[in-house]
């Protein structure tokens, strides 16, 4: 291991209140939830942080709560908890599928939804699903709590609305009811334990042969997880059986801005993002 534990300190608050106080007292302390994103660069000696704020023990941040209109997940909700939750499986299948393809079982049993969001990786697996379900985040500091649409949260590569004194505390999903169409596909080349090259999630509702509601989001094709608003616009209100595929594909290309990196090429990402959109529309017809 190349990380230097002896040079590091970990602050472990006993309550959310204490955690928020420590956030103010030590703004340089890196919040540490499941640690699945941070421990890899740490072991490789590539994590610059020396002080960590350990959130793992904060029971206030755990648990999935279901009410009539919404589902609320504590920021420390584990991927595994989402994957096995019966209501999530029924009503938010994209989120369940994306949780199930995040890392390996060990990672899913330690990694958290809040951590996944806060880490801000454009390649993270759950954000596209969170985007298409219109989720909202509760950000909390000693100053109080505020709700922001998740779609507005990421502002650039690893940048977000989270203030230095805030923590993500809750993730809220409005229940969509039955009859929707859900699509999620991750392209990681390897069938398990892969970092995505492209991922696409979609949710739609059709009626009278038309696409009445549609949300599309992608991972690994921009500096952050994004909604494909251009492609959505090209398809909304259009025929399910004969959607304007070319226009939607063209709009999608304007929505995304992929790069070449070690995992794939910009060209591949552009092409496959389009293929996924077409695949999603094929599925919508036969749904």
């Amino acid at each position, binding site marked *: 291991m190349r990380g230097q534990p002896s040079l590091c300190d970990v602050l472990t608050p006993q309550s959310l209140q204490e955690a928020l106080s420590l956030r103010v007292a030590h703004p340089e302390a890196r919040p540490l939830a499941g640690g699945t994103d941070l421990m890899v660069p740490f072991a490789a000696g590539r994590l610059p942080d020396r002080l960590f704020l350990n959130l793992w023990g904060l029971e206030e941040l755990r648990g999935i709560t279901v009410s009539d209109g919404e589902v609320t997940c504590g920021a420390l909700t584990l991927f595994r908890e989402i994957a096995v939750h019966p209501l999530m499986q029924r009503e938010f299948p994209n989120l369940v599928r994306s949780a199930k393809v995040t890392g390996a079982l060990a990672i899913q049993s330690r990694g958290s939804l809040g951590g996944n969001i806060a880490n801000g990786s454009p390649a993270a697996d759950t954000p596209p699903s969170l985007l298409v379900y219109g989720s909202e985040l509760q950000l909390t500091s000693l100053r109080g709590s505020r709700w922001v649409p998740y779609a507005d949260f990421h502002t650039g590569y690893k940048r977000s609305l989270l203030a230095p004194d805030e923590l993500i505390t809750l993730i809220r999903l409005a229940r969509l009811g039955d009859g929707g169409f859900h699509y999620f596909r991750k392209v990681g080349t390897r069938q398990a334990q892969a970092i995505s090259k492209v991922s696409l999630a979609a949710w739609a509702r059709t009626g009278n042969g038309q696409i009445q509601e549609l949300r599309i989001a992608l991972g690994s094709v921009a500096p952050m997880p994004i909604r494909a608003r251009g492609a959505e616009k090209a398809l909304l209100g259009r025929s399910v059986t004969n959607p304007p595929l070319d226009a939607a594909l063209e709009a999608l290309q304007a929505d995304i801005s992929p790069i070449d990196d070690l995992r794939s090429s910009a060209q591949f990402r552009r092409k*496959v993002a389009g293929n996924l959109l077409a695949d999603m529309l094929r599925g919508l017809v036969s749904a």
Partner: protein
Amino acid sequence: MKDYAHIGRSVLRREGRAKLTGAALFTDDLKIEGLLYGATVRSREPRGRIKGIHFEEGFPWEEFIIVTARDIPGKNVVAHLQQDQPCLADGVINHAEEAIVLLAHPDPLRVQDARARVRVDVEPLPTVLSIEESLACDPVIWGQDNVFKTILITKGDPDGARVKGHFQLEATYRTGAQEQLYIEPNAMIGEATAEGVLVRGSMQCPYYVHHALHEMFHLPLEKIRVVQVETGGGFGGKEDYPSMLACHVALLSWKAGGRPVKIAYDREEDMACTTKRHPSRTRIRSAFGADGTLLALDVELILDGGAYMTLSPVVLSRAAIHASGPYRCSNLRVHAQALATNTPPHGAFRGFGAPQSLFAIERHMDEAAQHLGLDPAELRRRNLLHTGDAMATGQIMRDEVDLVALMDRALTEIRYAEKRASYPTLNAGDDPVKRGVGFSVFMHGGGFTGSAESTLNSVVALEGTAGGRVRVLAASTEMGQGANTVFTQVAAEALQAPVDLIEVVPPDTALVPNSGPTVASRTTQVVGKLVLDAGLAMRKTLLEAGLLADGDVAAAIRTYVARHGALRTESRYQKPDFVEWDDATYRGDAYATYAWACYAADLRVDLVTYETQVADFVAVQEVGRVLNPTLAAGQIEGGVAQGIGWGLNEEVIWRQGSMANHQMSNYLMATAADLPRIRVFFEERPYAYGPGGAKGLGELPMDGPASALLNGVQHALGLVPRQVPLTPEVLMDLVEGA
């Protein structure tokens, strides 16, 4: 076939229980008093002159052991075939990740911290980073012309025959580097003073390490001792590199006055700096008669050897000899070269050159079949070798193997004819998932090439103990492949004793004779035969002493040792009478025998993602008598998994001569989810010169999967892929360019 008591039975892996329970101790597990932890400062540049080495000011360097090339007591070389590779770079750098400075400290984290505080100033020199640049000699980076070795095999009149052919085809095939990804990264512990050198660690070839230490220290042979510790996989990756690492830990210990020093690479360092499979480029020009008869083959094969020679000439030799595949061809030329580039040296990896050249010929046959309007199976049916035919080097095929029948068995198992006919219709529909079925036919020579087994002159000893047990003494290492178990079975068979009586001694050069390196599919076939002969000799000794009347071997040994003080028998390699080889002309019996196989794959290509998934895989092979069915099937399954990885996803991404994706998260080896059920079938025809009739089989399964898969992709899409790995990115270009 003869019925044996132990041979042919799935005796449990001897060290399996210890490995399963965690009782087995690997190098990094050993607790050693006063241990120092070593680390290596490496070059970033692929080529240059070292202008200075700077140690950060204000850092307590006095706490550290520091070694540079100047501290080497003997020659600054890692001795392999040629002494061109320094143990530590001195003055010049020839590849990225080349070792320059060694550090050691009692605190493993401190030494990692210190590593980042050494700066090496390098004046860059022009580089050679591809086969093409090396061929162009711009610049020359090794010898006169960047060529480590050239091999020419000729037969008949390839140029004349090619012109006369009814149909000619020329195509170039490429294969990429591949990382072995043994579970345990390289690790070694050294203790060295003028009184003696002891190195313990993870390795395949204790006597290679012994030789390298001898050359570097200039100490008498008997003062050097090398001990293999439980080894977590090798696949060739621990054939030559451990010699380098052994020299490093021993040097650090030498400088530290003999204190033990350990270097255990983490995965990133292991992937970045150790050897990989040679990348290759193979151009094949062929000619066929109107009936599909292969009239001429002209193969130009090039391996990228990296910055130093290491094992490249030998890898090249095996690649060249296997280049014409299992086919009859009277007019043939194989021109093979290993070239220098400024990348870390490429080395041994299961298959050792054969996967590269067999990939090319097996793809070429499917391409030719398409042009000729013949089914690939039919084209092979008309050209496969038969017993008595002459192979590329003029070797007469002695193995009584019906290759057509072997192929047909695989094709029947995969339901080839039905799928070959029905898939095109299915694929014409809207489903973006296309189906294909493909196969390959190939062979793998067992043991060292040509006269090299005679040169190795391997020896195995068996020892009876006072307690009535039998110890097998050989330098052949257990690295997960099952050597311990097979040796145990063979020794027990020879002695007609229970397997529990047999103990295979962990290799230690102070105790075991040199039975040669653990490579080249030779351990069972060649060394196993020596174990058998030594066992038979021991049984004869006991019989002649009149001690086996009641068949109790343990009692007989106890009595014998009590009477005579010791019981030891040895066996030395004797080449089969028929083997004749001329290294100058590359004529003769390249290998005493071959294992033969046909592998078939049924696959799906998803045109949404350009991913290829293998749905079913059939591996049929003839490997002589199978000594241990469970272990043998495991070897085949593992080799097929590695072959599928090499064929589809395992891509080493080079940036400035350095592996950029040196992590398991971005170098994508296949997981269980990526692999089909691998169905393994053996044809057993006992080989007269192997123990119980066995041939080598460890490398064979690496040779066939890649071409079988790409042949299946050709069937699925009607496209002509010519390179591996056939990553989704490469396939996208092929599909979209079509």
